[in-house]
């Protein structure tokens, strides 16, 4: 089972889409004058996508995004209505560890962004070779290289915030590719003083393996096509996963003083494996600030290709979420976490598990559910262990 990922402009839909011979289905991103408005999934039959089916699927798309963008486009909104001045320059930070091919692809896309004076920064986290350094070096002055030897994605993120030269720092994963308008779309949402972070829409770069399709189906980064503002008044800060993901986010540097740095006991490179950005989002909301989800800030993520890596990812998510909740419960007295955990199990994991055991179609594969639940159970101890390790490392000065 493979899915072709297509990117089509609504006003220039091709009359026929062919050449998709070894694909079973197509995931199509629809844009209106370059702005993402919808995604549709269609079967591919004999290597072709039926045009009528495509149009029908587009017209039946739920949500206001397509119509709102049509209207704003008609009213020439961006040229006439948006207030001046344009946002200031930003730093784009990529935290990476031993992924030379990915980082190369990522940087190529970043260098193709329109030049608004942004700084490109690579934080090389605990590298085992100097491949990344060489690759970054090949770009000369255009990309800045910083090495961070303490392991941990959140450690790297904090380093990025500290060394960035601009007020806004946009993060992108090393296995993601930025769309042309990605940075501008993120930056324009910082015009409200209470917005501390902006997240964007992430589509899959490819869906060539079953593992990638499963990831997209059950753990997609896509949060829809409607622009949204998250704040604690209307959204529970403890379920900050709905806000977005670290693969596509931008923060103000002042978050370091106003909210605090990323928790270095969390995320990849530590026993907790994930949850690093979720915890930060949660803290931003708890402090009374806002996070904007901007669907125009589009990037493309290459999901893990193998089933084993996918299982590991789901395990990592389980650990990460429970690690974040452990932190909230024990150190911020958020007692409602217990209720949340119970609800999540009861309303999500348990039905999924039962569906899978009874072999009902359309459910998440058993191995993934089990991996996530195992991760959840390991979460609290993983967090405490991670904190101990961090304290020990800080004490010995390493």
């Amino acid at each position: 089972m493979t899915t072709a990922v297509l990117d089509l402009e609504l006003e220039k839909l091709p009359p026929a889409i062919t050449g998709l011979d070894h694909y079973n289905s197509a995931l199509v991103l629809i844009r209106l004058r370059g702005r993402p408005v919808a995604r549709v999934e269609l079967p591919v039959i004999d290597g072709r996508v039926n045009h009528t089916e495509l149009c029908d699927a587009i017209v039946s798309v739920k949500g206001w995004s397509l119509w709102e963008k049509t209207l704003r486009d008609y009213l020439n909104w961006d040229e006439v209505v948006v207030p001046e001045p344009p946002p200031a320059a930003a730093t784009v930070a990529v935290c990476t560890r031993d992924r030379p091919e990915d980082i190369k692809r990522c940087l190529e896309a970043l260098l193709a962004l329109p030049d608004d004076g942004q700084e490109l920064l690579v934080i090389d986290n605990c590298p085992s070779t100097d491949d990344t350094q060489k690759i970054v070096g090949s770009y000369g002055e255009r990309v800045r290289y910083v090495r961070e030897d303490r392991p941990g994605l959140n450690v790297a993120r904090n380093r990025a915030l500290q060394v960035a030269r601009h007020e806004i720092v946009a993060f992108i994963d090393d296995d993601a590719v930025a769309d042309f308008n990605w940075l501008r779309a993120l930056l324009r949402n910082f015009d409200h003083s209470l917005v501390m972070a902006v997240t964007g829409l992430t589509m899959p770069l490819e869906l060539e393996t079953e593992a990638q399709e499963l990831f997209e189906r059950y753990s997609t980064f896509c949060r829809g096509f409607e622009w949204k503002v998250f704040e604690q008044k209307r959204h529970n800060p403890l379920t900050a996963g709905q806000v977005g993901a670290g693969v596509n986010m931008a923060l103000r540097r002042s978050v370091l003083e106003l909210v605090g740095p990323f928790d270095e006991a969390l995320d990849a490179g530590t026993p907790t494996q994930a949850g690093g950005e979720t915890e930060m989002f949660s803290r931003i909301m708890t402090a009374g600030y806002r996070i904007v989800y901007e669907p125009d800030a589009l990037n493309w993520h290459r999901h893990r290709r193998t089933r084993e890596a996918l299982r590991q990812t789901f395990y990592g998510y389980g650990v990460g979420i429970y690690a974040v909740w452990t932190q909230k419960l024990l150190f911020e007295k958020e007692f409602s976490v217990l209720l949340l955990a119970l609800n999540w199990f009861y309303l999500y994991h348990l039905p999924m598990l039962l569906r899978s055991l009874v072999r009902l179609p359309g459910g998440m594969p058993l191995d993934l559910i089990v991996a996530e639940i195992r991760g959840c159970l390991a979460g609290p101890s993983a967090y405490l262990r991670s904190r101990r390790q961090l304290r020990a490392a800080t004490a010995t000065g390493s």
Partner: protein
Amino acid sequence: MERVLPVVSIIIPTHNRCAQVRTILSRLCRQTYPQELVEVLVVTGERVDNTADMVRGLEVPFALQVFEKPSDGPAEKRNHGATKASGEILIFLDDDMEPEPQFVEAHVTAHQSGHDRVVIGYFPPVFTGHVGFFEIELRAWWEDTFYAMRQPGHRFTFRDMLSGNFSIRAELFALVGRFETNYPCRDDYELGIRLLKAGASFFHCERAKAYHRDMTTVERLFRRKYEEGRADVLLGYQHPELRPVLPMRTLLDYSLLPSRILRWLAFHRPVMGSAVARLIRSNMDLCQKLRLRGVWQKFFQGLQVYYYWQGVAEKLNTLAEVEEFLANDVAGDMLQAPELVLDVGRDLRKAELLLDKHRPHSICIMHNGTVLGIVSRQWGVEPLRGAHLRPLLAATFAKPLLESILLSPSAAVRPETQQVA
């Protein structure tokens, strides 16, 4: 021709805030505007601390005067400052503000681009102590208010008249009759109404920035809501056409059961109501400790409504009186025909220019011959301008406009560029 820079008078009404006044004055020493063109008038109240003496003893590069008006409220102090001021432009600044260096210059520049302007500055709150749920709410309210005013399509209302940091030409201020002095609060809104009626145009200047050291507490806010209830009744008597837009209208029509119970208590059992309110208030701190955000929110909103009704009930003793009060507005204008008819299908830019030229209060909007809808006359709101058109079309008239665009034969022609898509 070099334009002569005007003399500016900064009027600071104050009461018992010696340290804050010293801070403001030191900030005013660091302004980018020429100091010889600035005069500052501090108007103090009853002698509780030694603000007046402190001010008299200061060495500053601008003209500085202090007046002691022991029995006056803030409105009277501001009026007194205005009568003593010699400047062409008056800047009113509250005593808990900390102006940035470009503050005066920004106000003056804003006046140069328009004649009868009322310039509202930007004053985001800063908190010295712990930032809890209440401070978060307060900050959000202020920042949202300023954010809305910054949008180019914002249609100013009398509620945008914020007296903590605003400037106006001395002439215009005297012409409209200065502040009313019999209001416990909302005197700024009341001034805003008269300014709008006089045809003044409101303008928000982000660069005219002062940090607002907001020391409001929950108790003070609830007291304030009570005063607002009383003040709204006065506003309704002085400007009856505004009764439909007063908060009590919405609160009367759209209230959930808990709010309706609190309202009943405010009118019929005020003693019990106060006891219930105090109980709820004491529970709010517990909610915060337990991180029960939703519950805290509900308590907070509910109590604001309760104290507001308590204020209203002081002037209008029963709900029947409130109903009668609200019913006696000036509804006749609703039936008048719109002042202008615009077709936005042909040329949107031309429609905007027409609006800027005529500044109507009500319009009928059409698109290629189809009526989309009407913007009817509203009181206490500035007349329509060109910049209001597109936001209106994207919001209020979105659905009919989309239908018209998508279903009409000339839909492909976009009005700006006359391009066929």
